[in-house]
């Protein structure tokens, strides 16, 4: 398969996964909106993940929220860079160590970035309902709103990252070889 087509198909799949899974996950306390970004970064390269993430953020900002959510792109960007650089070793093979490092780093980076942006924009009050429920529960227990925001984000990012890792792993496993590897090499 032509490598350009391979890129196009994987990136399109990534964009569809991001949108589709985030809609499916709407009733649950997870986002799953970076699964396609992670897949594109894993199969192709971090730059492909960065583009898929950008498209995803545009769609989310345009159709669901507004342009102020565009800045959350840095979370997608962090996922693309971490997954694209850590999961595979130099020979291009996925390693368990790489996957574990990537999961831990994604949880840490996305918690720091997301909570910092939420605190900066709205003093810690998220515009996602499931986050707001947890946040209000922590605040009701007497926690400072900033700490409540960080803790809420951290807990949700653990579920979210683990669920994303499982989904990306399954999709990667069932992906045809001609899409997984560059056959033109």
């Amino acid at each position, binding site marked *: 398969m032509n490598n350009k087509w391979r*890129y196009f198909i994987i990136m399109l799949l990534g964009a569809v996964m991001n949108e589709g899974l985030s809609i499916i996950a709407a009733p649950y306390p997870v986002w799953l909106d970076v699964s396609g970004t992670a897949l594109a970064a894993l199969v*192709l*390269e971090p*730059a*492909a993940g*960065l*583009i898929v993430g*950008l498209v995803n953020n*545009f769609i989310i*900002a*345009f159709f669901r929220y*507004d*342009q*102020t959510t*565009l*800045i959350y*792109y840095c979370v997608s*960007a962090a996922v693309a860079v971490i997954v694209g650089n850590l999961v595979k070793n130099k020979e291009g093979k996925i390693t368990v160590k790489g996957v574990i490092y990537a999961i831990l780093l994604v949880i840490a980076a996305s918690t720091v970035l997301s909570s910092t942006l939420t605190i*900066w*924009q709205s003093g810690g009050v998220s515009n996602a309902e499931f986050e707001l429920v947890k946040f209000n529960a922590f605040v009701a227990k007497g926690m400072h709103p900033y700490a409540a925001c960080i803790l809420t984000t951290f807990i949700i990012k653990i579920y979210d990252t683990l669920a994303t890792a499982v989904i990306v792993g399954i999709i990667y496993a069932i992906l045809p070889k001609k899409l997984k590897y560059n056959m033109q090499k």
Partner: protein
Amino acid sequence: MRQTIYNIIKQSDGRDKLNKFYDYFICAIAFISIIPLMYKREYEIFNLMDTVTVYILFADYVFRWMTYDMRIKKGNISFVIYPFTPYALLDLLSLLPSLGMVSQSFRVLRMLRIFKILRYSKSFNYILHAFEKEKNTLSSVLILALGYIFVSALVMFSYEPETFSDFFAALYWATTALTTVGYGDVYPKTDVGRLISMISSLFGIAVIALPAGIITASFVDEINEEKEQTAASGENDDDEHSKIDRIIEKRMEADKDE
């Protein structure tokens, strides 16, 4: 993939049409994005314009960041350097009000998007280089000018304290008088005060005019250097030798084909 993106977004040298189109496109988007600032009233169309343009400018920022290593060729450290480069800082600052990261009272920061257009201007780059080259001289002149304004204000304030509400008003008078703006809302009332004003204005013109001369000289140097470089590299070289060279090259290519 990054190479393709870089080839499109890098500053055009006029050879690639897509690359040239992208330059014009970004300039147009940057200009459209600042149009709402020219109106007092908020129209619905302005919100749409802001939304669309901020998406495009944000994507442009991301593309430039992810390909910066190709531009400066310093490896992975380029990605750390990029957000702190002057143009990246200006781009980010200009986007912050639309991204909800600063309050709407800072929406004037959007005006900085004009630098997106200016970065494509050769003349603007000459001026930037001129400032860079003469930064030590300009700093000295600036310190001299500020010192002179301060002394003039101090002399006037101590001689005519009733004319100025406070020292800041005296500084304001000195600045507007020495830069020859002179709004006329604050002025000396006594004869000695007027004499001080006349003397300080005469010296002030010389001090204030100095930077203009330095920048102009450096600007002309920049243009001349560019001309010399262009001549040395042989661009626009239509002399007989280059024409003959081209004919020989074409014949050799034709021979190879045969």
